[in-house]
């Protein structure tokens, strides 16, 4: 009891800058803000690695301009997701790892590598690289992101409206992305028509939900 009181937001003394009411209100509502924050670092680690890997994936969709464009939208939106949540990590008294390898290692979704081995000269062996294989990597990456942001919605629902708002904006876009790659993969691999129900973004990587909270114009 006395322990709980110590952590209560009402227990933060006037002028005390060693504690954040913005964190204590979350704790009072039953969510551990430190645990949530570390989960956010893992999640934006995945957004960041995906942004990197999609650069390679989209390049290797050689000659498929429409696929490249859609992949570019998904790629830029993953960067927007990273940018959207970074400030939240700091608000929760966390930080990005100093070492980018650490950041990549803890990413909550798998590396979305180009699905082909390297050749003897250190380049990609593209001999047997198929468009449908790239589309499948993209699809599975989106599915992982949907699961992650749904988890974060679950963790924060009713306890942390600020993180919840971010997670649900991102989730909206991840579900768009899955629909895009289901449409493209079913057409490419199975000759099936499975409409996504939407069109490419107005501007590349528009991020219609997640950049509503734009904190700088280049993000």
């Amino acid at each position: 009891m006395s322990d709980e009181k110590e952590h209560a937001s009402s227990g933060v003394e006037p002028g005390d800058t060693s504690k954040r009411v913005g964190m204590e209100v979350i704790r009072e509502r039953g969510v551990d803000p430190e645990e949530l924050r570390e989960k956010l670092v893992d999640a934006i680690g995945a957004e960041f690695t995906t942004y990197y890997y999609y650069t390679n994936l989209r390049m290797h969709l050689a000659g498929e301009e429409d696929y490249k464009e859609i992949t570019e939208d998904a790629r830029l939106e993953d960067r927007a997701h990273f940018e959207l949540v970074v400030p939240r990590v700091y608000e929760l008294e966390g930080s990005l790892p100093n070492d980018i390898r650490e950041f990549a290692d803890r990413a909550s979704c798998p590396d979305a590598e180009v699905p082909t081995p390297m050749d003897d000269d250190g380049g990609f062996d593209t001999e047997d690289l198929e468009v449908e294989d790239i589309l499948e990597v993209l699809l599975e990456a989106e599915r992982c992101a949907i699961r992650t942001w749904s988890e974060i919605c679950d963790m924060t629902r009713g306890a942390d409206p600020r993180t919840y708002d971010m997670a649900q904006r991102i989730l909206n876009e991840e579900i768009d992305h899955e629909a895009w790659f289901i449409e493209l993969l079913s057409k490419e691999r199975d000759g099936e028509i499975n409409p996504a129900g939407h069109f490419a973004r107005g501007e590349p990587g528009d991020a219609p939900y997640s950049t509503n909270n734009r904190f700088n114009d280049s993000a």
Partner: protein
Amino acid sequence: MTRRANATWTVTVVVPDESSLDAAGETVELEVAEHETILAAARSAGVWLPADCQQGWCITCAARLVEGDVVHPSARRYDDGDREAGFVLTCTAKPRADTTVVVDQYDDLLEHRADRGKPPGNAKLGD
């Protein structure tokens, strides 16, 4: 152990008392088909087990194998060190025998990975 005609196995899921899951302290028996994962079978039976990526990468779904046999055909980051220490990833683990697992073992697997200098333990628990 005899393999049944319809290739389903009984998977006994033990949820530790100290777990924060709703099913803490319970032991649940599931019939899991050969092509099905333990996680999917549990969730469709209304038993909520932890998971995130569901691609055998993040280790949120870690469990310990007490008895039986599972395979991880599609796990993206699961190695012999995990297997030898008795860890399984329920999101990708498919039974190959009647099996018992203790779930909610994320912290332990994280530490085990850190001890071996492997991700994500190295990154999350490293100095």
